[in-house]
Structures are given as structure tokens and as C-alpha cells.
């Protein structure tokens, strides 16, 4: 483009107009022979997705008019809940105590799953596993623990150890082993193999290669994931309370069942504060670790 070209009008933002512009090619634009089949694929994918959504709407009785017609029910519920009952002896103090239990369930559920998750993660990572069979078996175990929701584990453990926080802790240990083991195995597979390889050529045993070459590289990721799981587990232990595993979830459930919605609101506010605090604290530590 020549230098004498007048500058473009100010209201047209076009940075490229003053830069390099190659002459259009004289070659014909090649016709993509797959164009028709690509269009067919995209078209049928769209049709399938739309159909799936229609089935889903039918299957879930999805009907926004119900929500519009029934808004008064919700308004009554909210009106009953306000103002929250802030009676210290009857509501706030038991709420805080139960919150502490919830926090303890989340803590133990996280830390006590470290040994099993670590062991399975080492076997389930292609870079550190000892044998293809060990790899497949530990992958399968992790998948199982991950696939079964913690609430199902809780219901099973309640039959053994009775209602209460202990059943919740056991449930979280099981489910968290599956999730954290998978996340750890993946972060091990993503790290640099170099140091491990170097120690292997130096004659280090397999276990030494792992403890000196692989694990030190992933410690920050491991701790970050651990804190993230603690965060999630505290929230899960709330839900576990609903099925009788103690903690603040149990109190919320009782308040709803006895129509004490103002009590319920107080508990929910406490839960909200707890979750914000845990979230901020784990986020703060993770940011510090990332440096």
C-alpha cells in the first residue's frame, strides 16, 4: 500500500489497513471435497442435540408456567424465614457447634484419604506405575470410588456404625480417595519425566526414582488439589448431614421438617459464612503455594 493513501476516517478502526497486504492469489481456491460430509455431520449433530433436549424437557416436567403460577408459595416460605431466628441458646450456638462438626467431618474425610489416594495415584500414573496390570487395577479401583457418590457410601456406612458424623467421615474417605487419587495420578503424568529418567540412569531403584524424581515435582500441585478437595468435602459433609451423618446439614433438615424456616435461615447463613471462609482460606494458601 502506498504511503500516499489517505488515512482512513477516524471512526473506522482498521489497524491492518496500514500494514502489509499481499496481492490476492491468482490460484483458484481449492474445493474441499469433505465439505458436504462436514455439513452432514454438523447438521445431524444439531438434530440429535435438539431431540435430546425435547426428551429431557418432557421427562422432567419442565414447565416455567408452574413457577409463575406458584410464586406465592415461595413468597410465603421466604416470608416465614425472615427475619432469621437469632436466639443464641436455641439456634445460633447449636448451629455453630454443628458447623464445627461439619468442618471436622470434612477435615478427616480429606486427610485420612491421603495414604490410600497417594498409593493408588502412584500405581495409576503411567509414569510411575510398576506394571500394566497394577495400572489397570488401580485405575479401576479409583473409578469405582469416584463413581459411587459419597451419599451412597454414607447410607452404607450408617448401617454399620449407625447415624452420626463417623459414618460421614468414612463416606468422604472412600469417595475422596477416588477423586483425589485420579487428580494426583493425572498431575503426575503431566510432570517432567527428566529427573526420574536421570535417576534411573544413575542406578536408583524404582521407589527411589519416585520419591526423589517424581513426587518432589508434584508437591505443590498435590497440596493445591488437597486444599481444593477439603473445600469440596466440607460442602459435601453438609449434604451428608441431611442423610443423618450429623453436622449442620442435620440441623437444617430438622428445621425444614418442623417448619421452623427462620431457624433454617440462620443455619443457612452460618453455612454460607463457613463456605466463604473455607473457600477464601484454601484459595489464599493455594495462591501462596503457586509462587
Amino acid at each position, binding site marked *: 500500500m502506498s504511503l500516499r493513501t489517505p488515512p482512513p476516517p477516524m471512526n473506522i478502526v482498521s489497524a491492518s489497513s496500514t500494514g502489509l497486504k499481499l496481492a490476492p492469489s491468482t490460484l483458484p481456491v481449492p474445493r474441499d471435497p469433505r465439505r458436504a460430509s462436514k455439513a452432514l455431520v454438523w447438521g445431524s449433530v444439531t438434530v440429535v442435540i435438539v431431540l435430546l433436549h425435547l426428551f429431557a424437557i418432557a421427562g422432567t416436567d419442565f414447565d416455567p408456567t408452574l413457577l409463575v403460577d406458584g410464586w406465592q408459595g415461595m413468597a410465603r416460605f421466604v416470608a416465614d424465614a425472615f427475619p432469621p431466628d437469632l436466639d443464641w441458646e436455641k439456634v445460633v450456638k447449636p448451629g455453630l457447634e454443628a458447623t464445627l462438626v461439619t468442618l471436622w467431618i470434612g477435615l478427616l474425610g480429606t486427610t485420612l484419604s491421603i495414604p490410600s489416594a497417594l498409593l493408588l495415584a502412584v500405581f495409576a500414573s503411567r509414569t510411575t506405575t510398576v506394571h500394566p496390570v497394577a495400572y489397570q487395577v488401580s485405575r479401576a479401583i479409583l473409578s469405582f470410588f469416584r463413581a459411587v457418590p459419597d451419599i451412597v457410601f454414607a447410607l452404607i456406612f450408617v448401617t454399620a456404625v449407625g447415624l452420626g458424623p463417623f459414618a460421614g467421615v468414612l463416606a468422604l474417605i472412600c469417595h475422596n480417595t477416588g477423586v483425589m487419587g485420579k487428580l494426583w495420578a493425572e498431575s503426575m503424568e503431566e510432570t*517432567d519425566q*527428566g*529427573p526420574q*529418567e*536421570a*535417576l*534411573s*540412569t*544413575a*542406578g*536408583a*531403584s524404582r*521407589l*527411589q526414582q519416585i*520419591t*526423589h*524424581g517424581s513426587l*518432589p*515435582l508434584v*508437591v*505443590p500441585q498435590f497440596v493445591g488439589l488437597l486444599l481444593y478437595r477439603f473445600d469440596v468435602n466440607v460442602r459435601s459433609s453438609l449434604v451428608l448431614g441431611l442423610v443423618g451423618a450429623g453436622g449442620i446439614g442435620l440441623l437444617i433438615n430438622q428445621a425444614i421438617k418442623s417448619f421452623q424456616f427462620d431457624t433454617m435461615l440462620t443455619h443457612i447463613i452460618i453455612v454460607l459464612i463457613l463456605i466463604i471462609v473455607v473457600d477464601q482460606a484454601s484459595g489464599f494458601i493455594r495462591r501462596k503455594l503457586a509462587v
Partner: protein
Amino acid sequence: MQQAALSVSALAKSFHGRRVLHDVAFEVNPGELVAFLGANGSGKSTTLKCVAGLTEPDAGHIELGGSVLTELSGRQLQLARSQAAMVFQKIHLVPRRTALDNVCAGALARVSGLGSLSPLFFSRELRQEAMGCLERVGMADRALDCVGRLSGGQQQRVAVARALCQRASVLLADEPVSALDPNAAEQVMELLAELAHEENLAVAAVLHQPDLAQRHADRAIGLLHGRIVFDGPATALDEQVLENLYSSERNVA
């Protein structure tokens, strides 16, 4: 003439049906720095990796410090191989650990049991020996620094110290200075030559820069299309030899 520290003969290797090494044979003696030169894909790195066990050769005979590697297997092979220590282009230290801990890890083949699984349990003797290795490479004053905080050249010297802590008789260096700036490269090459001449180590280094070989190596081995086409004193590396080694790169299929 003294016994060679590393002797290789009839080494052959193919990748996906393409022959990358043909009948490679050479020796490296204690006290000499041998530079391996050649264009990309000439097989110089593959040769080194076959010795280090990072690649399995198809055929050939590798003798290292009295044991024939190609006749051993499993843990015995691994231990025999630890007679050769390796230094890598990408250094491969653990950045979050101190230089001293990284150097101690070079000795892992000699220590065993649960106590060998964490730097916390490394013995005083081992730390003392590792300090000696760091001192030898001029890094004693940075022993407690995390490796990640050191410069590339310093890291490579720590990696050499780790190799020394392995008590090897052969030092294999795969492009040890390709990732370093010219000054650091010069220092590391000087160090490798010193270790050969003063500590009687046999050093085999794959290099990409012929001028480094001319200045620091005692002997040079040139590979072209997987064959050794030059084996002689580094001073004999003249224009014609280099022309032959590098100019035909374009002719590789």
C-alpha cells in the same frame, strides 16, 4: 595402552524400519574428552542413549568398566550401567530441592532401604561427599540454594556434581551446553575437560558446536547417517572434515 573405560562395537539401531546406527564402534579412554559431532539425525545422541540404557540397541557389544552391558539384564544391568553417569541438555534436576540434595541423589544406587527415600535421612558421610562434588564443580557456596534459583550454567554444573557423586568412571554428556549462553557453555566445557584430565574420567560429549569440540575435546568422533566417518584428534577437525559432516544434511531423505 591402558584399558578403555567404554568400548562399543557393532552397535546397530533402527527406528520404525529406518536404520539410524550402522556398525558403530569406538572406545573412550580414561582421561580423555571425546566429542561426538554430526548433523541432526546423524545418530550421535542415539549412540549415547544406547550406552546409558535410555534406548535399547538392536545389536552390538557395549563394555563399560569391565562389564558387558549387552549380556546383563534387570537390576544387574542397571547397577552395571551406573558406572556411566549422564548429564543432559535439559539438566533434569529437581528445581524445588537444594543443590546438595540433588547431588546426594546421584548416590542412590549405593544406598538402600527406607532411609534412602527422603533427603531428610541422607547420612553425614553422603552429604560430605556431595559437598566435595559441589566443591569440585565450583558450586559449594550455593549448596543450600534451591536449584530452581540457579542460572542455567550453574544448574548444569550441579548436574555434573550429581554425576560425580555417582562415582562413575565414564561421564556421558548429551548436548550438555546447547541450552546455555556462550559464557556458561565455555565454563561447563572447561569443567568437563578438567574432570577428564585431572580426575581421569572418560568423558563422551555430544556437541552441536564444532568450535567447542576443537577447543576443549581431545578427540572427536564424527557421525554421518549413522556411520562413524571421522575418529581422530580434535586438532584434526579441519574445514574439510566439518564440510563433509554437516553439508550433506540436505541430502538426507
